[in-house]
């Protein structure tokens, strides 16, 4: 291909000025960047809250905040991290930026709807943060909003619940957009099994977004109605059943954890073959396992309710299905490993983050298996072991995949390159801090420390101390990483089209890509990883 005559997407102004260029854009890459900007801000708020919580937990008794404040902190931390960060995370940012590129399309199927999703997201986010400022204080229910406490408490739950409702619709519309895009806009020659695995992962994710999210929408609406009109759908005094609320909540929120992790796995499936310069091993196995996780993931929600008073047979069924859903994840890990065998491995930052992902996701996934066992979960449920588990999978998994994606597509997005040396160092700080922060949580959980505890018994002191120190190192690593990336964005060297020598279509166009991605829509004749 010759060099392009079209302006690249970052320069093009379309006759508009200042921020309006961005706020009215229909370009998928710009919308992706707008998500990135918003997401980073919320994410940093979430991290700060995390740090505050860790400070409070440094010693038993009061360190810095009151119990009521602490309860609001972990609720906001959970709501922000889940609904504003990990769920939209990879699809909204890197899905938007990279999906049309890797399938050789000019944009997503419904560009206007895409922008609308962003506005919905912002509106929902503002509502969520608004709970801090108006009414009777931020919600103190935990991100799970369990009835009947969420109905009784005087804090601003109604608004938070509406926020989650709106955010859900943003997520649904993104999913809808991607499904149609993948069905209709693959470039000529790209049959389903010539499609890059990131697209497969997004496809599976989108189906979960579409079919699971409405359940939480209607459930949270019921909570809101119950609070506003006092009509009890879950209030035992009025014949309701609080456990039914839990069913409805987890019918969505378990599949939601796969909304978080599948796109991350998709990113890893792109990075590993590129940096090993090898054909991915078991392409079909990885593609199918995404679909399998998405499908089986619908039927395991009960594992969050093993101590809720759910009937025995239901516990057994949910436990066994939980174990089955772990297998497709295992298949992916093994195939990634096999892809490295006999490759030519280049340990650049994206690959480092991918390796970090595998290690941390392994710990997260394997502790998930402990949770899934009936007997073990009776002891472990609602303790810090679970907190450790989900930080390993969400932050060690999705978070690290997010970082990997950020380092991988960085040159494509900005047309510049960050400092490889410093990015590598930042990784090691982050990785070390991470393990010091979260591993003690697993230990203290096994010792029996429940979660959502403002204060704890003296025997839990030491692990908590270590964990808090770890949180400082983690944040150091994070700051380091962000500084390196921002430096690269501002003053980095000009990047080539294809610095990592990838074969997927995103690397075949300019960096940064032109306004409509490709001079001409490409035609493919081979699978996406046919390294010679």
């Amino acid at each position, binding site marked *: 291909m010759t060099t392009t005559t079209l302006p690249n997407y970052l320069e093009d102004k379309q006759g508009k000025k200042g921020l309006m260029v961005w706020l009215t854009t229909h370009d998928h890459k710009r919308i992706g960047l707008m998500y990135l900007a918003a997401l980073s801000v919320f994410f940093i708020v979430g991290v700060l809250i995390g740090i505050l919580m860790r400070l409070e937990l440094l010693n038993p008794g009061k360190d810095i905040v009151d119990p009521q404040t602490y309860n609001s902190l972990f609720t906001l931390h959970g709501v922000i991290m889940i609904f504003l960060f990990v769920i939209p995370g990879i699809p909204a940012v890197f899905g938007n930026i990279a999906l049309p590129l890797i399938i050789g399309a000019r944009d997503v199927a419904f560009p206007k709807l895409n922008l609308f999703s962003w506005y919905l997201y912002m509106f929902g986010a503002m509502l969520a943060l608004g709970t801090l400022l108006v009414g009777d204080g931020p919600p103190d229910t935990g991100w799970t909003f369990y009835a009947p406490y969420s109905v009784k408490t005087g804090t601003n739950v109604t608004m938070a619940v509406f926020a989650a409702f709106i955010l859900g619709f943003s997520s649904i519309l993104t999913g809808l957009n991607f499904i149609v895009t993948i069905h209709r806009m693959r470039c000529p020659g790209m049959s389903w099994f010539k499609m890059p695995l990131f697209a497969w992962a997004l496809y599976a994710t989108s189906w979960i977004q579409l*079919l699971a999210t409405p359940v939480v929408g209607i459930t949270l609406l019921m909570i809101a109605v119950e609070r506003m009109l006092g009509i009890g759908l879950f209030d035992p005094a009025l014949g309701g059943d609080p456990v*039914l609320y839990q069913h409805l909540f987890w*019918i969505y929120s378990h599949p939601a954890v796969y909304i978080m992790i599948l796109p991350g796995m998709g990113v890893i499936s792109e990075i590993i073959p590129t940096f090993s310069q090898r054909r991915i091993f078991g392409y079909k196995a990885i593609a199918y396992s995404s679909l399998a996780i998405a499908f089986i993931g*619908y*039927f395991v929600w*009960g594992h969050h309710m093993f101590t809720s008073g759910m*009937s025995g*047979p239901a516990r057994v069924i*949910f436990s066994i299905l939980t174990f089955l859903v772990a297998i497709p994840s295992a298949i992916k890990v093994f195939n990634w490993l096999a892809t490295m065998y006999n490759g030519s491995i280049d340990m650049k930052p994206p690959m480092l983050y991918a390796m970090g992902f595998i290690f941390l996701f392994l710990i997260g996934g394997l502790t998930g298996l402990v949770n899934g066992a009936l007997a073990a979960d009776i002891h472990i449920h609602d303790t810090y072991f679970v907190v450790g588990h989900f930080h390993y999978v969400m932050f060690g998994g999705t978070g690290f995949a997010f970082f990997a994606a950020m380092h991988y597509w960085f040159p494509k997005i900005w047309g510049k390159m960050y400092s490889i040396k410093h990015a590598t160092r930042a990784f090691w700080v982050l990785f070390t801090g991470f393990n010091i922060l979260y591993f003690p949580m697993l230990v203290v959980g096994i010792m029996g420390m429940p979660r959502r505890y403002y204060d704890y018994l003296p025997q839990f002191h030491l692990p908590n101390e270590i964990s808090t120190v770890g949180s400082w190192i983690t944040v150091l690593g994070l700051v380091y990483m962000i500084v390196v990336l921002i430096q690269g964005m501002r003053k980095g060297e000009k990047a080539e089209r294809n610095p990592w020598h990838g074969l997927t279509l995103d690397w075949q166009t300019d960096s940064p890509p032109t306004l409509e991605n490709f001079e001409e829509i490409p035609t493919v004749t081979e699978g996406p990883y046919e390294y010679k």
Partner: protein
Amino acid sequence: MDEQKHHIVDYLTNIKVWVALAVLTILTVWVSEFNLATLTVAVALSIATIKAILVLSYFMHLKFDSKILIIMVLVTLVIFLSMIIFTFFDYLYRK
């Protein structure tokens, strides 16, 4: 769902479907007058399902659309029904 010639459902077919739906509505109301004990729910839901299939296949064109769309509808229904069934695994066995 590839570009295919659009199939036109003619007026008469639509009207026939409408007649069927109307008859089924009357039927279901009529049946509900009897006490069918445990069958009540089953009968009412079966009739509703026949009506739904009619609406889906003719009014909503599903019968003339591509296979993949039908598969999607089925997957959605399977997932929806499983949500109910799996929740019942809890309630059926509570003591």
